[in-house]
């Protein structure tokens, strides 16, 4: 059996296990075991992947298998991975693992919570390994729908409103996406012959230019909404603010990455001509995203809002780099997805933990937390430093790759856009340091805070996993960068010509 | 003015007048009676068009069946001499306007179109022909609709008994 399928089977079995066991403690134990296995399996896959590559398997995708699912429309379960999807799988399993431990203390409807969470993660895994547009779309929906329940039931604040808004906006995106995907499908055989959803097949075919120009915006915006493309990003602040910790982590950490990944793998890869012709529009939008998100974050008072706007800025950078369409910038974009995934997951985990203690997320109501909860505070500072691009942590690697790559573009427009986007690093520093200053440093503002307990073991595990991942990428980025870069050469060759 | 014409205009006038009276009468029982007149006049119209069987069915079924049913239900649900409320102005206005517009639209459309009367020889409308067709299974046979209708009538029969019967508490 295809080893990739275990990425779907393990979550499936975990869900089944959760339904069988008795109480909350067992539920979370099963969930933790399942997701640890998943993490382990991702590393095994990575190892195999390297071995196969080393053994001279140079084909585009590895571990490919294909089963016809619905013959009339030529829909298949087609799975396979390249370096980029391998990296995304790794990211997903790390974030899910950390997410399980971050939600260790969910007391209301624990069973249902973990089931939804794991289904969400399973959808994401399915998305990243799919090579068939229809299956991809299916898993995309599988990942988006549990979000509604997770926010609507276990959220906080105006959770119904936020859940509704998030789901509706993402569904709006799906609708656009559906149009785009069907457009690709019906143009997948311009010279006659059977239509296909197969991504690798379509990549070999030249979709007619008019069709590309028409369907590219649908596909790109459809995925872009999930990737928080300005001005379709407003689900993100509200959604994140209301979502429970693990959901914010998974959502910002992984689900938003589906957007960037889809924009690249589907929209741009399959419709290169349109990508070239329309890139400038989206480039302007993403440049706005980058700077606008950062400026927006400065003025926020709620920790989650700050982070949500910062996500808009950072995810904007992902799409920005993708649109540069060269190898270095694209590598940077994927690196940025992973880096942002890890560090934003860390941020949300910490915010959840802090909120669980102080029962507020307003930064002005807190202060001096460094003194009372040093572990969480130090990790928060590390996350902040990663976010503002400190060398040695992942953010720096990603951002620098993006900036250097984007600057290789000879066109003045692109380079000016790069400079504008690069200026965001200063603004990022401003809002990160502002939060750190107000929240963690200074005198303790509230007398009750003196009684706060520092992180418990599962919180530490969750935080340390993410910090180690961030540092691992930041200190030794070459392996990841090479892993990602390896398939890109071919893809970009296709994209550029 | 020939005989048939005179008869037609009399019938048409009766239909129109009684139907108008039927809907505007505020005595509900009278309305039912006016409806009866309309239906009978229509039977006359059918008769004129050589559909004796249909005319007979019209008399038996409508005049004899449905109107009686209606009168029964009137008696069951209200007093004989109770009067209906006058129609609401808005309903009256909108109904009248729509109807008049619809009538004008329909009439103009009809009158603009020139129908080509058929020259082919009429088929007989005697009971034998009707019976053969109604129960025939070949071309121009109506056995299937006939059976469907019987099933429908049975269903209606059962249904109305079920609906109208007093629920056991």
């Amino acid at each position, binding site marked *: 059996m295809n080893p990739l399928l275990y990425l779907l089977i393990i979550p499936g079995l975990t869900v089944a296990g959760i339904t069988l066991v008795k109480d909350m403690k067992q539920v979370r134990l099963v969930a933790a075991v399942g997701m640890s296995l998943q993490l382990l399996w991702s590393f095994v896959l990575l190892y195999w992947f390297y071995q196969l590559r080393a053994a001279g398997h140079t084909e585009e995708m590895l571990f490919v298998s294909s089963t016809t699912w619905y013959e009339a429309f030529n829909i298949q379960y087609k799975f396979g991975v390249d370096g980029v999807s391998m990296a995304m799988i790794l990211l997903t399993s790390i974030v899910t693992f950390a997410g399980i431990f971050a939600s260790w203390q969910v007391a209301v409807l624990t069973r249902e919570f973990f089931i939804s969470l794991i289904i969400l993660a399973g959808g994401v895994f399915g998305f990243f390994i799919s090579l068939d547009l229809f299956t991809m779309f299916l898993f995309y929906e599988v990942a988006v729908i549990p979000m509604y329940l997770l926010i609507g039931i276990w959220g906080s604040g105006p959770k119904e409103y936020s859940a509704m808004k998030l789901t509706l906006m993402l569904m709006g995106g799906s609708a656009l996406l559906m149009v785009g995907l069907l457009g690709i499908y019906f143009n997948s055989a311009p010279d006659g012959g059977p239509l296909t959803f197969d991504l690798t097949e379509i990549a070999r075919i030249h979709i007619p230019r008019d069709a590309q120009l028409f369907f590219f915006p649908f596909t790109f915006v459809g995925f872009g909404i999930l990737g928080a493309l300005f001005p379709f990003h407003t689900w993100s602040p509200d959604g994140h603010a209301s979502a429970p910790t693990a959901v914010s982590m998974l959502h910002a950490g992984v689900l938003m990455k589906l957007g960037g990944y889809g924009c690249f793998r589907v929209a741009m890869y399959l419709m290169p001509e349109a990508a070239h012709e329309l890139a400038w529009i989206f480039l302007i939008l993403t440049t706005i995203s980058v700077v606008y998100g950062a400026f927006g974050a400065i003025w926020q008072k709620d920790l989650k809002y700050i982070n949500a706007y910062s996500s808009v800025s950072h995810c904007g950078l992902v799409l920005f780099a993708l649109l540069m369409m060269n190898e270095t910038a694209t590598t940077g974009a994927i690196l940025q997805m992973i880096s942002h995934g890890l560090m934003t997951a860390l941020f949300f985990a910490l915010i959840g933990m802090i909120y669980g203690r102080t029962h507020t997320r307003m930064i002005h109501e807190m202060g001096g937390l460094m003194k009372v909860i040093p572990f969480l505070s130090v990790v928060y500072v590390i996350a902040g430093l990663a976010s503002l691009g400190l060398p040695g942590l992942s953010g720096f690697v990603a951002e620098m790759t993006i900036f250097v790559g984007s600057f290789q573009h000879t066109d003045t427009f692109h380079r000016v856009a790069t400079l504008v986007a690069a200026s965001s690093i200063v603004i990022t520093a401003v809002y990160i340091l502002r939060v750190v200053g107000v929240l963690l440093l200074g005198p303790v503002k509230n007398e009750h805070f003196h009684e706060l307990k520092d992180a418990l073991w599962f919180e530490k595990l969750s935080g340390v996993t993410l910090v180690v991942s961030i540092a691992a990428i930041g200190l030794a980025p070459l392996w990841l960068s090479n892993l990602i870069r390896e398939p890109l050469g071919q893809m970009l060759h296709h994209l550029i010509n | 003015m020939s005989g*048939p014409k005179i008869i037609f205009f009399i019938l048409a006038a009766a239909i129109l007048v009684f139907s108008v009276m039927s809907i505007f009468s505020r005595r509900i029982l009278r309305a039912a009676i006016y409806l009866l007149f309309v239906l009978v006049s229509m039977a006359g119209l059918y008769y004129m068009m050589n*559909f004796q*069987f249909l005319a007979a069915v019209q008399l038996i079924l409508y005049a004899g069946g449905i109107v009686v049913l209606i009168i029964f239900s009137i008696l069951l649900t*209200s007093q004989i001499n109770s009067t*209906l409320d006058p129609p609401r102005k808005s309903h009256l206005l909108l109904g009248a306007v729509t109807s008049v517009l619809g009538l004008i639209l329909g009439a103009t459309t009809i009158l603009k179109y020139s*129908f080509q009367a058929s020259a082919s020889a009429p088929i007989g409308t005697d009971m034998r022909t009707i019976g053969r067709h109604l129960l025939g299974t070949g071309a121009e046979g109506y056995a299937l*609709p006939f059976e469907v209708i019987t099933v429908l009538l049975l269903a209606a029969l059962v249904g109305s008994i079920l609906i109208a019967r007093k629920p056991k508490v």
Partner: protein
Amino acid sequence: MNLQSEIPLEYMIVLSTAVFFIGLVGVVIRRNLITMLMGIELMLNAVNINFVAFNHYLFPHRLEGHFFALIVMAIAAAEAAVAIALIINIYRKFSTVSVDDVDELKY
């Protein structure tokens, strides 16, 4: 008896249209369910006139309109039976047969 030379088809159809709309007015203006039912009967009959007239004038060699009218009558009978059963039931429940009071099924 052949009416074609005496009375044009248009007369018949205009007549039926008029009856149809009179029936419609009846349905719209009356609030008593029974009178509304009577309006509906009028409309059905108007349609029947059409069937019959078209049969007689345009397709005298066939009997489709005739049978259609017959079937409509049968359905009208079934409809009337069911409707009256409903009306009686409604009367039991609401002690009235006015549609104004029977508006439970809304938004």
